[in-house]
């Protein structure tokens, strides 16, 4: 039986989240829950459906493991049918857990990565149904990487 579609849109605070906010019209018509690393973003961007994850980067494995555990329980509770992330490590964690639990996943690598993918972006290949860069020239260097446009 088809479930009602639910989007989980994830990004770390700062540039990743600013990019996610520019994609909001793409989620129109879907129940959408936003996830980031700073609770203050909910009021700044007037988001009433907002969840918080701790921050981490791909270098610190212990912290990353903790984020993965938190992301797993978040996905288990919210049960999104779709996940979109503009990075970074917490977005990767949510994508990995959501994919495991059957969601469709889209990674949009940050526009900050013009010369090469970020550490999280390179690994996102293995957990994203659609693996996107915002720089068309990078599709030649990473087999499977797609370009569909950029946020600005």
């Amino acid at each position, binding site marked *: 039986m088809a479930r009602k579609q639910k*989007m989980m849109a994830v990004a770390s*605070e*700062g*540039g*990743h*989240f*600013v*990019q996610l906010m*520019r*994609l*909001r*019209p*793409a*989620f129109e018509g*879907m129940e959408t829950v936003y996830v980031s690393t*700073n609770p*203050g*973003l909910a*009021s*700044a*961007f007037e988001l009433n459906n907002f969840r918080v994850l701790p921050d981490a980067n791909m*270098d610190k494995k212990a912290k990353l493991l903790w984020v993965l555990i938190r992301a797993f329980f978040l996905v288990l509770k919210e049960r999104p049918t*779709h996940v*979109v992330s503009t990075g970074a490590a917490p977005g990767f964690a949510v994508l990995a857990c959501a994919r495991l639990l059957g969601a*469709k996943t*889209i990674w949009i690598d*940050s*526009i*900050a*990565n*013009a*010369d*090469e993918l*970020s550490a999280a972006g390179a690994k996102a290949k293995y957990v994203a*149904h*659609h693996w996107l860069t915002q720089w068309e020239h990078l599709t030649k260097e990473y087999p499977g990487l797609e370009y*569909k*446009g*950029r*946020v*600005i």
Partner: protein
Amino acid sequence: MIYVTVGTQLPFDRLIRAVDEWCAVSGADVFAQVGPSDGNFSALKSESFITPEKADALMKEADLVVAHAGMGTIITATQCGKPLIIMAREFKYGEHRNDHQVATAKRFEDFPNITVVADEAELKQALDAFDTSASSPFAAGTKYAPDEFINNLKLLIADS
């Protein structure tokens, strides 16, 4: 008012110190968000971290924004139509994990509201050249990504 911001992850004292030195001479009204820095800055007002709401208010109020080459600031300043001076964090000075900000700065130097500076000397020259009494000649940018990208994403979501 000049708003300086270097994000939350790492300090960027090379930029803050240069603005502070310039501020001591010019006497300009400068507020700087300096990140996890233990530097002492005497001429400018500074805080390590500010709330997203305060960052939003400072961005709207600012006559000029000075920042690292972070996409959050580049996008937000462009959305608000603010003139922006950016200096990239460099790996060789331990300012970031790699040199992606140098690449970012290069990619965005063509934006009409953006001035890219290579080092502290160029930063001070750009600050000297800026007239804070004039209103911004730049129109506010769009709030959302181009329609083509939004539509492509909708297709990916619908298809999957």
